[in-house]
C-alpha cells in the first residue's frame, strides 16, 4: 500500500498546474496577501490596520478559522469548490489520459480508489494546515506593526487546549473532505469527464450548503412543514452542529418552527460518518463493476 500511495502522490503532486491552482492557492494566496499588506504596512499604518482587521485578534481562532473555508456557511459554498474541482479532475483525468487500462491490471480497483482518496485528502489537509500557519504568522507580524495583543499567551494548557480543538476541527474537516471526495469520484466515474465531475460536484456542494433554505421552501410549497427536520441528516447541518458542540457544548441554535435539533454530538458525527462511508462504498461498488473501454 505504501508504494501505491507514493505512486498516487507522484501523480498528484507532479501535476503542478492543477495542484498549484486548486490546492496550494490557499497558503500561497494568503502568503501573497500578507506579504503585500505587510510591505504596505511598513510605509502606511492603514495597510497594517486593515490587515489585522481581517483576523479575530486571537491566534487560536485565526488558525481554526481557516477550516471554515470548507466547513462554515456561507464561506463553504465557494471554499469547497476548489477542493471539489481538484478531486474531481484528478479522478476524471484517469479516464482522459486513458490510464485506468494501465493501472487496473496492476492492483485491485478498490485499492486504487482508496489510495487516490487518501492522497488527495492528505494534500488538501496539508494545504489547510499551511494556510493556518501562514495566517497566524501574518496576523502576528501585523500586530507587531500596529501594536496590541495577539493572544492568548502560549502556555502549556493553552497549547494543549488548542491542539485538541485543532484536531477536533481537522477530523471534522477530513470527514467533510471524504464526503466531497466521494461525490467528486462518483461524478467523475459516472460521467468519465472532468466537466461532468465538476458540474455534479458543484451541484451537490451548493445543494448541501443551501439545504436548509431548500427544505424550508419545499415545506412551504408542499405544505409539509416537518420536512425541515431532514436538515438534521445533511452534511452541512451535521458539520455546523458538531462544531457547535465542540466549541460551546451545545447544539447549534436554529430558530426555525417545526425544527428539532439533533439530540447530541454523536448523532451528527454518525450522520457524517454514514455519508462518508456510504459514498465511499458506493464509489467502490460502481467502479468495481465499470467496464473500462477507453
Amino acid at each position, binding site marked *: 500500500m505504501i508504494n501505491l500511495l507514493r505512486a498516487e502522490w507522484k501523480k498528484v503532486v507532479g501535476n*503542478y498546474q492543477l495542484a498549484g491552482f486548486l490546492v496550494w492557492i490557499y497558503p500561497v494566496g494568503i502568503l501573497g496577501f500578507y506579504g503585500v499588506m505587510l510591505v504596505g504596512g511598513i510605509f502606511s499604518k492603514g495597510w497594517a490596520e486593515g490587515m489585522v482587521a481581517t483576523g479575530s485578534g486571537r491566534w487560536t481562532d485565526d488558525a481554526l478559522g481557516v477550516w471554515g473555508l470548507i466547513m462554515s456557511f456561507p464561506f463553504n459554498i465557494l471554499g469547497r469548490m476548489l477542493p471539489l474541482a481538484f478531486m474531481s479532475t484528478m479522478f476524471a483525468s484517469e479516464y482522459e*489520459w486513458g*490510464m485506468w487500462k494501465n493501472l487496473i491490471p*496492476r492492483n485491485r480497483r478498490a485499492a486504487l480508489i482508496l489510495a487516490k482518496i487518501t492522497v488527495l485528502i492528505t494534500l488538501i489537509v496539508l494545504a489547510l494546515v499551511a494556510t493556518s500557519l501562514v495566517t497566524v504568522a501574518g496576523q502576528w507580524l501585523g500586530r507587531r506593526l500596529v501594536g496590541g495583543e495577539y493572544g492568548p499567551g502560549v502556555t502549556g494548557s493553552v497549547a494543549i487546549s488548542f491542539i485538541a480543538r485543532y484536531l477536533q476541527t481537522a477530523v471534522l474537516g477530513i470527514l467533510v473532505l471524504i464526503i466531497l471526495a466521494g461525490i467528486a469520484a462518483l461524478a467523475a466515474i459516472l460521467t468519465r469527464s472532468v466537466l461532468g465531475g465538476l458540474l455534479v460536484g458543484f451541484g451537490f456542494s451548493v445543494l448541501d450548503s443551501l439545504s436548509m433554505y431548500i427544505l424550508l421552501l419545499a415545506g412551504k410549497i408542499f405544505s409539509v412543514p416537518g420536512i425541515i427536520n431532514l436538515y438534521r441528516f445533511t452534511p452541512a447541518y451535521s458539520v455546523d452542529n458538531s462544531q457547535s458542540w465542540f466549541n460551546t457544548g451545545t447544539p447549534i441554535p436554529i430558530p426555525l418552527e417545526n425544527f428539532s435539533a439533533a439530540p447530541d454530538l454523536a448523532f451528527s458525527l454518525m450522520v457524517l460518518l454514514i455519508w462518508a462511508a456510504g459514498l465511499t462504498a458506493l464509489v467502490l461498488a460502481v467502479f468495481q*463493476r465499470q467496464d473500462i473501454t477507453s
Partner: protein
Amino acid sequence: MPVPLTIRTEDLSKTFGRGSKSVPAVKHLNLEVEAGQVYGFLGPNGAGKTTTIRMLMDLIRPSGGKAEIYGRNVRTPGVLARVGALVEGPAFYGYLSGWNNLEVLARTANGYNPGRIQALLEQVGLAARARQPVGSYSLGMKQRLGIAAALLGDPDLVILDEPTNGLDPAGIQEMRGFIRSLAKDRDKTVFLSSHLLNEVEQVCDRVAIIHKGEMIREGPVAGLLAESSSKLWVQVSPVEKAEGLLKDRWKVSRESLPPEPDPWLVVRVPSEDSPEVVEFLVAHGIQVRQVVARRQTLEEYFLAATRETSVGDSEVTHD
C-alpha cells in the same frame, strides 16, 4: 500434471448495452494459447479484438463464458501480475516524464526497481529522453514507452495490441525482431493483435482470425497457409481443352496479362498438389508452356476468410 495454458477462454462473450440497443462485440470465443508461442490475433476493425484483450486484462466484465490466464480466472487477485500489456495504443500522464510514468506504474504494481526502469528505457531507446515530459514525445516514442511499461514487471505473458503503430520502418523491423526475441530468447508468451497481416505472418507461430466477434479460423500460420489453396498460374495450349479438363477437378479461372497475347489459367490448388496439375495436363496431351506457383499470402487468406463469413455462417476451423 499438465502445464496450464497461458490463455484459455471458454465461450467468452461480451454484449454492450441492453435490450434492443444491445451490441454483441464478442461471441462464444474459445482461445487456447500455449506457453512460449507468439500468437497472432487478427480481425478487421470492430471484430472484437480489443474487447477480448480488455476482458483478458479484467478491464471489461464478460457477459458470458470465462477467461483464464495460467489456469486461473483473470478476476482472481494476483493473476495479472504475470501479464504485461499494451492495450489499444500507449497512454501515459503527459505532464510526467517517461521515467516518472514508469515509476508510477511500477509502484502501483508494488514492484519499483529503478535499475529495471533504466534498463528498459535503454532497451527501447528512450534513455536520453527519460526525464522529459511524455507530452513532448512523438507517437513512436510513446509506443516504445508503452512496450517498456508492458515489460516492467518482467511478465511471463506479454499482450501487445498493435505494437508497431506509429513506428518508422526501421522501428517496425526492430520491433518485430524484439517480439520474436521475447519468445525465443526470454521464454515469454506473446499475444499479438495486429491489423498488419504481413507482420503476423512474419512474427507469429499461430494465429486466430476473428470477425464480427466470432472466431472463424485458428491454427499455425504455416499450416493455415499450406492448407489454403495457393494459385498455380499455367500457360497452356490449347487453352479451352485444358480449362475444360481442369474444371472437372479444380477451381479454374482465366486471366489475361496484357501485353501477353495468350491467356493464363489460374488453378486454385493446395501447393503440394502443383506437380499433379502439371502431370495431369501433360497426360492429356496439353502443351504446358509456363508454370508459376504463387503461395497465398496471409492477407489474401484473411480477406477470403472474412469475406466467406460475411456471406454466410461458417464453422471455426482449428488445426
